[in-house]
C-alpha cells in the first residue's frame, strides 16, 4: 500500500508514452507516403500453398532448381491448422516431382489437415506431385496440365542389390497405396499406367493429360481457380454446418 502512495502510478504514465509513440509512427507514415492511413486488404480466410519446381528433401539441391522445401511447408501447414482465422487451403501444384519421403510427408500433412483443402494441378504434377495432388479433400486439374506416372527408380552406386531392390519396391508401394487410398483410381489401373511401355521416350510409364486424369479417377474434376474457390467455400460451409450441429447436440 505505501509503495503505491510513494511512487506515481505506473499505469498513468504508460498511456502518455504510448500516445507519443503513436504520433511518432503517424508522422513517419506521412513523411514516407504523404498520407496517414495505408489501405490494407482484409485478412484472407483462405491460404494458398504453392508447390513448385522440385520437392526438396534431405539433400539441398543446387540453386538452378526451383524448389519447394518441406521444412518450409510443414510449419506453414501447422500454422494453417492452428490459426482460427484460416478456414481453408488451396494447394497449387506445378512440380516435376522430387524426394519421395519429403513428398509423402507433405501429402500426409495435407491429408490429415482438419480444415478443408482443394488442389489445382497447373502445368504439371509429375511423379511425387501425384500423391500431393490427391491428398486434398477435392482435386482439380486444368485441361492443359499433365501428370507423369512412372516407377520409382534410382541412379548411382548400389550396394546390396536385393536389399536395395526391396527397399525401392516398398517405397513404390507406399506411393501407390497413398494414391489409391486418396483418389478414385484402382490399384490395378494406377499400376497399369505406371508400367506402361511406349508412352515415354526414356522411361516406362504414362503421361496423363488433364481430362484423362479425371477419366481414370485420379483427379476429381477439370477446373481452374474459380471452380476451386467455389468448391473450397462450399466445403468450408459444410464444415461450419457440421460443427454447429455438434454444438447443438
Amino acid at each position, binding site marked *: 500500500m505505501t509503495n503505491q502512495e510513494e511512487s506515481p502510478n505506473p499505469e498513468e504514465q504508460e498511456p502518455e508514452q504510448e500516445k507519443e509513440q503513436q504520433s511518432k509512427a503517424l508522422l513517419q507514415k506521412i513523411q514516407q507516403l504523404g498520407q496517414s492511413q495505408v489501405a490494407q486488404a482484409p485478412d484472407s480466410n483462405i491460404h*494458398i500453398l504453392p508447390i513448385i519446381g522440385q520437392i526438396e528433401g534431405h539433400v539441398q539441391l*543446387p*540453386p538452378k532448381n526451383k524448389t519447394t522445401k518441406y521444412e*518450409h511447408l510443414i510449419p506453414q501447414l501447422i500454422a494453417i491448422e492452428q490459426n482460427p482465422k484460416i478456414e481453408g487451403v488451396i494447394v497449387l501444384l506445378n512440380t516435376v*516431382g522430387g524426394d519421395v519421403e519429403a513428398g509423402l510427408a507433405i501429402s500426409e500433412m495435407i491429408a490429415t489437415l482438419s480444415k478443408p483443402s482443394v488442389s489445382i494441378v497447373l502445368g504439371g504434377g509429375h511423379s511425387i506431385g501425384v500423391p500431393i495432388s490427391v491428398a486434398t479433400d477435392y482435386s482439380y486439374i486444368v485441361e492443359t496440365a499433365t501428370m507423369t506416372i512412372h516407377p520409382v527408380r534410382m541412379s548411382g552406386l548400389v550396394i546390396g542389390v536385393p536389399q536395395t531392390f526391396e527397399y525401392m519396391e516398398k517405397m513404390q508401394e507406399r506411393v501407390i497405396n497413398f494414391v489409391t487410398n486418396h483418389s478414385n483410381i484402382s490399384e490395378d489401373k494406377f499400376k497399369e499406367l505406371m508400367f506402361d511401355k511406349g508412352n515415354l521416350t526414356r522411361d516406362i510409364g504414362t503421361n496423363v493429360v488433364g481430362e484423362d486424369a479425371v477419366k481414370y479417377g485420379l483427379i476429381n474434376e477439370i477446373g481452374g481457380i474459380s471452380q476451386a474457390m467455389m468448391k473450397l467455400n462450399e466445403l468450408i460451409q459444410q464444415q461450419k454446418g457440421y460443427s454447429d450441429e455438434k454444438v447443438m447436440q
Partner: protein
Amino acid sequence: MIHYTPLSEHDIFEDDPTQYDQHKIVHVRGKSVKVQQLEDGSYQVVHLLSTNPQHYLDQHCMPGTILKQQDFRD
C-alpha cells in the same frame, strides 16, 4: 534419398559447390523471403515464402525487389 521425378540426375545436380551459397532466407516485414546477393552487396528478392495471399501484394517482398542489408534481418 530417392528422387521420384521424370528429370534425369544431371538436370538436377551440378558439380560447382559454390553455387549453393547464392541464396539465403531472410525476414522482411515479418515475412520469410529467399534472396540472392548481387555484385554490389545488395540483395534481390527471389521468392516469397508464405501461404497468405495478401503477402504477395506487398511491394517490398515482390520478386525482383532490391533490398539493402538494413531492410531485413537474418
